[in-house]
């Protein structure tokens, strides 16, 4: 028990939590935007892989870091467009399309990586985003290191949460997105093109997901490995439900999961001698299932989520 409290008191734990949470924030917000418009995007796992690979590869081929992030976002948007063509315009199953996108996008990422770097035996490295210490604030005990000695991409992640909230809940376009997820016929009846709104939302959301993936190879680590997204996309899908489709609660849920993840790594080290490490690996997932059961029971999901909209169809 005292070990556990020790963990909570180290700055390293909090710094790790904030680092782990960053890709989850991007991914969860991306999924949230898609689902608010009524489209489930299970392509997230693959789109994050695309973002991780393409952003990293951009920098490795000589581009700079920020254009790399932008490139990753564009690639994400392209796969978002693909998802939207199938689910929004053709009205096909969002589950099947999403899983197809995930398989296709991750395989394509690995394929392109191998094509461009056929000879690499150990994964080559880039110079990733470096931590930026915010003057004065970074000198604070514990919080200073955790919150104010992070990379620019992490600061961006924390900044994006209120931005997404503002756009969704305080601007006309956000209203159109939310309404498309609640009742697309109402959007149509007000003279707005539902298909365009949904397509746009899925593309923007997918761009967010790809940036989340790019964070892993460009800020957290400095190389691209196969399988490095490792289910984070699926966690984001669960976090959206946990968050009841609200950006603020999404941040909270992502922090909770990231904290558990950071704890388990440290608990492995301190208690790994007598408890198998797999047990600790499992913990964050068990905890998120439990949290989902508690939090998501009475949640109000978007009424038109998963419901395709077809113009001019006889009802």
């Amino acid at each position, binding site marked *: 028990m005292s070990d556990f409290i020790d963990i909570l008191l180290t700055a390293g734990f909090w710094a790790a939590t904030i680092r782990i949470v960053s890709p989850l924030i991007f991914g969860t917000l991306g999924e949230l935007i898609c689902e608010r418009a009524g489209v489930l995007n299970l392509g997230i796992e693959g789109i994050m892989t695309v973002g991780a690979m393409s952003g990293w590869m951009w920098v490795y081929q000589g581009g700079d870091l920020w254009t790399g992030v932008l490139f990753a976002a564009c690639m994400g948007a392209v796969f978002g467009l693909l998802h939207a063509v199938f689910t929004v315009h053709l009205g096909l199953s969002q589950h099947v399309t999403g899983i197809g996108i995930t398989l296709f996008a991750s395989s394509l990422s690995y394929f392109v990586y191998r094509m461009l770097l056929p000879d690499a035996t150990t994964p080559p490295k880039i110079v990733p985003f470096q931590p930026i210490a915010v003057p004065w604030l970074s000198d604070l005990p514990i919080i200073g290191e955790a919150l104010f000695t992070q990379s620019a991409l992490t600061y961006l992640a924390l900044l994006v949460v209120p931005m997404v909230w503002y756009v969704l809940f305080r601007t006309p376009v956000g209203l159109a997105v939310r309404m498309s997820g609640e009742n697309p016929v109402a959007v149509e009846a007000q003279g*707005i093109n539902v298909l365009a709104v949904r397509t746009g939302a899925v593309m923007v959301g997918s761009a967010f997901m790809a940036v989340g993936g790019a964070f892993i190879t460009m800020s957290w680590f400095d190389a691209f490995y196969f399988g490095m997204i490792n289910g984070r996309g699926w966690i984001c899908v669960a976090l959206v439900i946990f968050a009841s489709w609200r950006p603020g609660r999404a941040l909270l849920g992502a922090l909770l999961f990231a904290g558990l993840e950071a704890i388990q790594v440290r608990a492995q080290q301190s208690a790994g001698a007598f408890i198998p490490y797999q047990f600790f690996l499992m913990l964050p997932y068990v905890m998120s299932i439990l949290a989902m059961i508690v939090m998501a029971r009475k949640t109000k999901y978007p009424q038109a989520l998963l419901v395709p909209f077809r113009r001019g169809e006889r009802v």
Partner: protein
Amino acid sequence: MSNPPVLEFRGVTKRFGTLTANDDVSLTLQQGEVLALLGENGAGKTTLMNILFGHYQADEGDILVDGEVLPSGSTQAAINAGIGMVHQHFTLADNLTVLENITLGTESLWSWRQDQANSRKKLAAMISDYGLVVDPDAMVSELSVGERQRVEILKALYRDARILILDEPTAVLTPQESERLFATLKSITAKGLAIIFISHKLHEILAVSNRIAVLRRGAIVGTLETATSRREQLAELMVGRTVTRPKLSAIKPGDLVLEINDVSTGGTGATELKEIDLTLHQHEIVGIAGVAGNGQGTLADILSGLRSDFSGTIELNGQMLAAGNPRAIVASGVGRIPEDRHARGVVANMDIWENLISEDLRSDEICRAGFIIDGAGARVRAEKQIEDFDVRCKGPDAETRLLSGGNMQKLILARALSNTPSFILANQPVRGLDEGAIAYVQEQLLEARKRGAAILLISEDLDELMTLTDRIAVMSHGMLSSALPTGERSIAEIGLMMAGHGDQGGAKPGSLADGH
């Protein structure tokens, strides 16, 4: 009448596959008038309005607003031309506020903020101008049906509509709410707007409109001045022939058939039953009036065996009802006509004979060795039922989904009534049917009554209840009033009780006192 029309249809034709939904429709609408569009279900009224509002594209013909051709297939163009539509099925998002529902699409999508202060002011002015009272910050899910309709009207007016289309606006309202709507419509036309009022209810149309266009099978069969029209003349135009609905003949009630005693389903929601008592006798049709969603569905589910989570007792012919066991309930002599033909009445993708045997798979006629279906036997029986109940189809092997609404309902009647049930649950049995089919269904129910069945008729149509029942009870918020002989309460009184205003005085909690 020499003013140019604000709206003109010129030869509009719309086909869905082989079905011609609108056939060369030409119409004009003048400023400040209410034009009623009268027609049976399926006559093409809604299709025509959906073309006007840009939901559908016409195959032929033009629509002119103020003399200019309206681009087809664009809702945006229709809104910009000043057309507002109140859809029959409201186009509102439940989890958003009234204000959000109304302002959607009124501001540029790319502005960085919503001008809420301004929209609030404009909305408040319209609410007081037209008397359409509703709280702008309420969630739509919290509103009553009448309030939701007001939001829909406000939505159209907010966008400066000059032509307002109302598609079956009274279908979901109590008589008092309808009166209030009619008053609103008067104040709207007084301000120079033109209204198209779609309905199949003759008395409403005669009450609110200036002119009437009658639509039958997609074509305009007559345009009349309301002042000089008679009800019978309109009915005949609409149906294409004279159809008289059957009337109740006096029969003395017989033995007790169904006794519902103190049935509650727990919970406080509007659809949860609260201490319901009701008795039905042989040769008796008892009607339940009420606005949809006040517990009628729950009661129907319990009596059909789809729900068993209730307290209290239900006895059928002296035996406890086999709650939660549909097969036993059917076997004990209950005929069920469900509310939604398509969702619960039939399996649309299966054949007619399959649907006909689906309630008694184990009878000797169609079942061999206890588990093998005798296809030939089932078809023989199906053919007889098809003939007895006049189901117009190609035969027992035709697909059920190809049947018209009326024929589908006849199929359900055939299944429910063939083995002479002692109790018949008829939930909205004529909803969405044309006049001919309505008369047929009602005749069959009267036939069953004559034979000695007890019938519970759940309906939202008060005229139907007034002509077809021996007694009427009113359901509101899960509570059921006493069932008084039909005619003892006026339509106005029943309307008040439907709105939940009947329970004054020292009635026991959870029961509706009679409204007089």
